[in-house]
């Protein structure tokens, strides 16, 4: 069925084109005085327009277009449907915020020519992925996105660890693309076409569908950061400049989620009952492992990167539940779970971008990402600290902010799962629920730690003590995202309703219309079962707080005295005696991380009277490195050493090798038939 191209599709394509032109312009203008303004300002305008047009496209009819590019006879198939529009909106909203932030933040970049050309190219790649409607265009856009972000990761290659981060990233990205390529190969084998339409018409069957699911989880999961394919993420996301970190963590992982949804929900045909199990299990494990790792880090941006793994876990649990419900014919429950996942996609894009912007603002103001060199910034950076507080509360799933609303929906979906007939799911789902609840509680601990160490307390270094608030563009970007977090939390029903065309397209059923529920509540199934009203909860809390403040100030004395803090008999305690990032996490490290991450503390205490410093050394390892990647790297190294001998053969030996290979191939061919 050939659809006419719609205005929105053409708008999105022209946005991609303009972004590519900006990338080229970035090459020419980077060193010039207006480079930053042109590139970021242009990207801001383009992404804002594209986001607005994507928003209208979610509900509007779809459009398709074939461009005479790419593989002969297939061309570049492009298509904008409700699901693409949702992700296009998320990408461009995140892109707009990052561009706005970049207008100010980019000023501090000492090598703009290494960032400016790739930033709009990265945005263009991410916008193109949801538009692709054939395997070739999809993989091309996916690879373009990966390479542009890789260039941004290694843009500051003189900083320690960045080159290594880039190497690990490009290896994992290539692996992910390879997995996706194989998945598309299997999908195309059925119908003999590389367009999504042909794949959809002839979905794989039998073992092929299992392999497609596994490859989609490997390919999209490695980009999204599913455990154990997450190892590149905490290295690469912090290495990039902060607005790019925000895009990578907040937005690119969402494009990966899109890839997974497109393949598994759309192209692979109706799901089997067991499809949900690996997805739910992988998501739940990613949730707990990600947040626990975040608690062990002492670098602000690494904490945020690990926290992304946790949130991706939550999204995948939602998607897995949706698969399980869809396979068992529970349309309403599937719609609920799928909506929860999409809602969290949107929420996480906003919250994580905001938090990375905040970390970038702190980096600009103090020159440090190490938590133990910060502190007390709430006094020095009032706007940043308010925005970050909202972001931290939102990502810790505190009502009435947006993170809570999507998490609440996931819990409601879990509570519908006893209906599922399959026994495997009956055991996997409650366990996943417990792990998610654990991850949520640990996330709150993680962000208390991050915010408390960085913004509260006393300054731990001179840089932190003399920090200044960042520029107006950065502040505006942070406040805009904070406003989105608050609004989406107060009016979750509006977001849920906006997502329904995409839910209907993928699951076949939609959630009940939330805008028709009285008082702007959200009601996933029926009011007697569960309902939540973010706005009313907010009003209750606000009015009780104001009322109590009013009454107290009437009743009590208003006297306030400033005094030194309680010193326990030791006056003038140095700021380094405050709780540090490591000491704050110590109880949790001891409870959870000992067995999982082999976290160990070694304390060197000099004898009394000695002037030698006491030392504490904390070590922890990522099991994915220890048990998967390092052995794998060792194996590759050993094989490479063996194969190295082949470089030093004589001509005769080479000819013999070629002859032998030829005979072997002919033998195989003869035996095959």
């Amino acid at each position, binding site marked *: 069925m050939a659809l006419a191209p719609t205005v929105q599709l053409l708008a999105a394509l022209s946005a991609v084109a303009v972004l590519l032109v900006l990338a080229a312009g970035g090459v020419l203008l980077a060193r010039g005085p207006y480079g930053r303004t042109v590139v970021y300002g242009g990207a801001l305008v383009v992404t804002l327009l594209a986001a607005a047009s994507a928003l209208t496209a979610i509900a509007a009819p779809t459009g398709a277009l074939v461009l005479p590019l790419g593989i002969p006879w297939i061309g570049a198939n492009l298509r904008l449907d409700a699901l693409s529009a949702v992700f296009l909106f998320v990408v461009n909203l995140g892109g707009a915020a990052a561009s706005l932030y970049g207008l100010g933040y980019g000023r501090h970049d000492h090598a703009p020519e290494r960032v400016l050309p790739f930033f709009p190219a990265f945005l263009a790649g991410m916008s193109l992925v949801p538009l692709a409607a054939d395997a070739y265009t999809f993989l091309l856009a996916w690879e373009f996105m990966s390479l542009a972000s890789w260039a941004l990761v290694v843009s500051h290659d003189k900083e320690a660890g960045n080159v290594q981060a880039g190497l690990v990233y490009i290896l994992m990205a290539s692996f992910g693309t390879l997995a996706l390529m194989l998945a598309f190969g299997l999908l195309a084998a059925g119908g003999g076409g590389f367009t999504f339409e042909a794949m959809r018409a002839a979905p794989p069957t039998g073992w092929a569908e299992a392999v497609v699911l596994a490859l989609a989880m490997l390919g999209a999961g490695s980009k999204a950061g599913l455990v154990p394919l997450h190892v590149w993420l905490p290295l690469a996301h912090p290495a990039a400049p902060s607005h790019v970190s925000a895009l990578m963590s907040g937005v690119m992982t969402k494009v990966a989620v899109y890839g997974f949804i497109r393949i598994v929900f759309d192209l692979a045909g109706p799901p089997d009952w067991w499809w949900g199990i690996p997805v739910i299990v992988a998501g739940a494990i990613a949730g707990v492992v990600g947040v626990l790792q975040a608690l062990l880090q002492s670098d602000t941006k690494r904490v945020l990167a690990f926290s992304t793994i946790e949130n991706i876990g939550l999204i995948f649990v939602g998607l897995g539940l949706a698969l399980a419900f869809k396979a068992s014919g529970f349309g309403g429950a599937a719609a609920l779970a799928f909506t929860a996942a999409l809602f969290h996609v949107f929420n996480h894009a906003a919250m994580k971008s905001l938090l990375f912007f905040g970390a970038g603002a702190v980096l600009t103001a103090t020159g440090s990402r190490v938590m133990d060199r910060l502190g*007390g910034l*709430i*006094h020095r950076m009032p706007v940043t600290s308010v925005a970050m*507080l909202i972001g931290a509360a939102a990502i*810790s*799933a*505190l*009502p009435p902010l947006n993170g*809570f609303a999507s998490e*609440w929906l996931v819990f409601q979906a*879990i*509570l519908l*799962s*006893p209906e599922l007939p399959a026994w495997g799911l*009956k*055991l996997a789902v*409650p366990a996943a*629920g*417990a792990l998610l*609840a*654990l991850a*949520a509680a*640990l996330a*709150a*601990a993680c962000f*208390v730690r991050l915010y*408390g160490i960085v913004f*509260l*307390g*006393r300054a731990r270094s001179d840089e932190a003590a003399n920090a200044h608030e960042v520029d107006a563009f950065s502040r505006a970007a942070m406040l805009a995202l904070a406003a989105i977090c608050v609004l989406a939390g107060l009016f979750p029903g509006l977001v849920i309703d906006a997502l329904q065309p995409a839910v209907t397209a993928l699951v076949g059923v939609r959630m009940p219309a939330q805008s028709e529920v009285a008082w702007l509540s959200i009601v996933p199934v029926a009011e007697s*079962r*569960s309902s*939540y*009203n973010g706005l*009313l*909860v907010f009003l*209750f*809390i*606000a009015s*009780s*707080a104001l009322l*109590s403040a009013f009454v*107290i100030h009437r*009743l*009590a*004395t208003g*006297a*306030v005295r*400033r*005094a*030194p*803090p*309680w010193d326990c008999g030791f006056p003038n*305690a140095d700021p380094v*005696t405050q*709780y540090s990032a490591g*000491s704050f996490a110590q*109880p*949790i490290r001891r*409870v959870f991380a000992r067995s999982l991450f082999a976290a160990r503390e070694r304390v060197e205490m000099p004898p009394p009277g000695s002037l030698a410093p006491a030392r504490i050394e904390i070590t922890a390892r990522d099991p994915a490195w220890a048990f998967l990647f390092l052995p794998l790297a060792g194996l590759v190294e050993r094989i490479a050493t063996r194969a190295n001998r082949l470089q030093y053969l004589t001509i005769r030996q080479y000819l013999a090798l070629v002859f032998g290979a030829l005979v072997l191939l002919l033998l195989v061919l003869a035996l095959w038939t």
Partner: protein
Amino acid sequence: MMANLLVQGTQMLLVLALAPLLTGLVRKVKARLTRRRGACVFQPYRDLARLLNKEAVLAHNASWLFRAVPYLLFAATWVAAALVPTFGTGLIFSWSADLIVITALLGSARFFLALAGMDVGTSFGGIGSSREVMISSLAEPAMIMIVFSLALVAQSTQLSTIASVMVAGVGLRVSLALALVALAIVAVAENGRIPVDNPATHLELTMVHEAMVLEYSGRHLALIELAAQLKLLLFLSLVACVFVPWGLAPAGAGAGALVLGMASYGAKLAAGAVLLAMFETSIAKMRVFRVPDFLGAALMLGLLGTLLLFVSRML
């Protein structure tokens, strides 16, 4: 509508008025059990009044967050307590927040209190906050698992609906028994009672909650104390309305049923206070790093209850 609004308003004021009395009663019973005379049960009211009349001493470094948190903490706890049915289930705003939201409201309160503990920048606040989040990282998922068990039995996360289902009677169930034990453990931990924390101590080695609020004084401290008392009341009310729901006035009940509901509520609270005091006097305080085992048991019990309900509706 007006009657419902009145019930809701009465409930909000009732929990506020009763909370200090409950704490006073627990203290009195504990004192009598340890052969002390103990202060009058109304002493907490006097303490609050005394604190209100004292000036608030702020550390030089305290930020606006430090001053705002007591109000936020109090408001979140009060709203949560106001949404738990105490003497009647006909709470007009109960649909605005279910049991998961109530749990999360308490989580928000704790989030901000832990932040406030770190604001002044002393090691005391840090130690309190750090231990508090360690305890809550296990208590919160245990609580969510209990919520799951209750919701699966009652087919609803709405607390009013759960209470109505429980009043109607669901029979003896293994999962509910597990949930009750788990809820008792969580309640002890969340309220900083012995054996997890000691609300009466000022000893660095053991204290959690007190270390966090050490810098607070005057009206701020009064609000924090009142919030802590409200939280204790909330958990006892929760146990009462879910596990001993008898006497709860149904929605739209007449004055007689409401009075009966209040009387039974008072009796349940008093019984809960006595039980809590007996429990606290009969065991010793745990080491901090024994607490995770204690709470891990609650988490496992909650998960077991939920699993049983996933496997069979009858258990």
